[in-house]
């Protein structure tokens, strides 16, 4: 068996794959956070809860309505996005113009409500969610066995990230969005309905989180706490990347995921804190974040 730095190669590849998958979720979630923060100036603490909701909606669709994975991949983000739009219209929109910390506190409260309610109904034990039959099994890549579903998650998240980036950078809607990020009043004066843009953006961000939740359901078990554990790591990712750029959020997400996987191979005890250590180092050297613009 071949070894690399004294580590058996399959173990190394395996951990890199796990890191890549975790990184996919970091990238998807920090992307959504960055999109929401860019326009609304709100740090969406409920992002983790929306990710968890996405997983639970697909679980519910399968077990109560018999609707499978592929349809859930479309339906769950729509449902969670609709819930988010209601939240934005009824609550979040009242806080614009106030200290942005209130947005954080409001979404924190919402996260507690969702999480507490789901824990009350479903308990803390995870619910299994089988991957669709088309994506079960493994593929022999020559140097390692790749479970097909895991490969699919990496590819799908790359496509989603790229798609969102294209949506924001290359379409007319995206140009409105970017313009409103720079100067909302001016864009409104040009006749763009900025409040509707804000609502849509929050819905889009939440839908992205839910989509990540559906992708995650077959890998991690569907669990009411799956979001809150993840969101804090994603916050660290966002601090490292800086929220100035969408592409920065994506790259940082994948990078830190892989770094975490590698740490698991070489020094497993530190793997749960390595991202926070990186955050501390980045704060010392480059406080604005790797891709940040703000001084």
């Amino acid at each position, binding site marked *: 068996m071949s070894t690399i730095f004294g580590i058996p190669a399959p173990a190394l590849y395996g951990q890199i794959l796990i890191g890549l998958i975790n990184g996919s979720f970091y990238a998807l979630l920090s992307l959504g956070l960055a999109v929401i*923060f860019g326009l609304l100036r709100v*740090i969406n603490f409920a992002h983790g809860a929306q990710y968890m909701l996405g997983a639970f909606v697909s679980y519910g669709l399968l077990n109560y309505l018999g609707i499978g994975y592929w349809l859930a991949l479309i339906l769950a983000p729509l449902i969670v996005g609709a819930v988010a739009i209601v939240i934005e219209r009824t*609550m979040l929109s*009242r*806080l614009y113009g*106030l200290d*942005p*910390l*209130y947005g*954080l*506190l*409001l979404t*924190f*409260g*919402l*996260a*507690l*409500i*969702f*999480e*507490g*309610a789901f*824990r*009350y109904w479903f308990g803390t034990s995870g619910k299994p969610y089988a991957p669709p039959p088309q994506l079960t099994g493994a593929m022999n890549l020559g140097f390692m066995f790749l479970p097909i579903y895991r490969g699919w998650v990496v590819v799908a998240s790359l496509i989603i990230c790229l798609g969102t980036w294209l949506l924001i950078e290359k379409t007319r809607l995206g140009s409105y969005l970017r313009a409103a990020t720079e100067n909302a009043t001016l864009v409104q004066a040009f006749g763009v309905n900025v409040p509707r843009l804000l609502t849509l953006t929050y819905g889009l961000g939440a839908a992205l989180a839910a989509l990540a939740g559906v992708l995650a359901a077959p890998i991690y078990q569907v669990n009411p706490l799956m979001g*809150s554990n993840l969101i*804090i*790591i994603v*916050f*660290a990712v*966002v*601090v490292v990347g800086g929220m100035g750029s969408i592409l920065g959020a994506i790259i940082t997400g994948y990078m830190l995921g892989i770094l975490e996987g590698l740490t698991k191979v070489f020094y497993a*005890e530190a793997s*749960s*804190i390595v991202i*926070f*250590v990186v*955050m*501390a180092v980045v*704060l*010392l050297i480059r*406080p604005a974040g790797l891709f940040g613009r703000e001084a």
Partner: protein
Amino acid sequence: MSVEVQSQPIARQPDLRTLTRLLTALALVGLLAAPFVVYPVLLMSMLCFALFACAFNLLIGYVGLLSFGHATFFGGAAYFTAHAVKVWGWDPLAGILLGVLGAAILGLVVGFLAIRRQGIYFAMITLALGQMFAFICLQVPFTHGEDGIQGVPRGHLLGFIDLNEPLSMYYVTLAIFLFGFFAVWRIVNSPFGNILKAIRENERRAVSLGYRVDRYKLGAFVMSAALAGLAGGTKAIVFQFATLTDVQWQMSGEVILMTLLGGIGTLVGPVVGAAFVIALQNYLASSDFPVTVLIGIIFVVCVLVFRRGVVGELLEFVRRREGRPD
């Protein structure tokens, strides 16, 4: 006519001062008599969390920094105190002081990193560093992982006050709380405190006036952490254990809620908020209603309609009546 209008607030000021003194005296008598009416452990829990909330309020209320990682200092101090008293056999007071010192050092490290960013980033950084500390607590041997440090002996304070006696434990806790509360009051009303408020109101202006804003922020952060540590260390002696619950982000969230509910930036607000939240948790402990959901709902309601908190709204009401001619 105009003379009368001008002189009115001046004439009323002594009234307000006597009222404040009267209320303070009443509160003190109430606190001294309380253990004869209410279960002392519940009261001690309220006092510990009230002190914790006051320490947190020092930062959010007077410097405008929202720390989402204050559980680190509260829970960290609880671990240090519990370990010193249980394993090393220290005097409870020495154990609590070690907790305070440990929390201050943690505050220095966390604060040094976190004050490099402002506003929303500050909150995220403190949250992330707090989570990192929780992971460390899960792995290092002296905290005993999921079990925590159990069965911490209360012992004899200074060798002669038997803390196993519920009443003496209560009065010691009360004395510690009053000390901490007085410390916050003193800090807020000192020249140092005025500079903190200036930073809260307009940081750039404070910089342009020649203040080294970062040092003041760090100073306030360390003081807040040390006071949170005082609360955590005392809690470890009162409840005789220190566990992971104290260092996790949910605890940081709870102290935010207590302060927000009572009134950010008011001296008494955090005390009222803490007493209310602890009473609520105590009341719901026997039912199977999910407490987290209720806490979340209170959060949402506070942020949407009640941003000044209970005490803040009361003060605003009084202020408005003062300002309006009868």
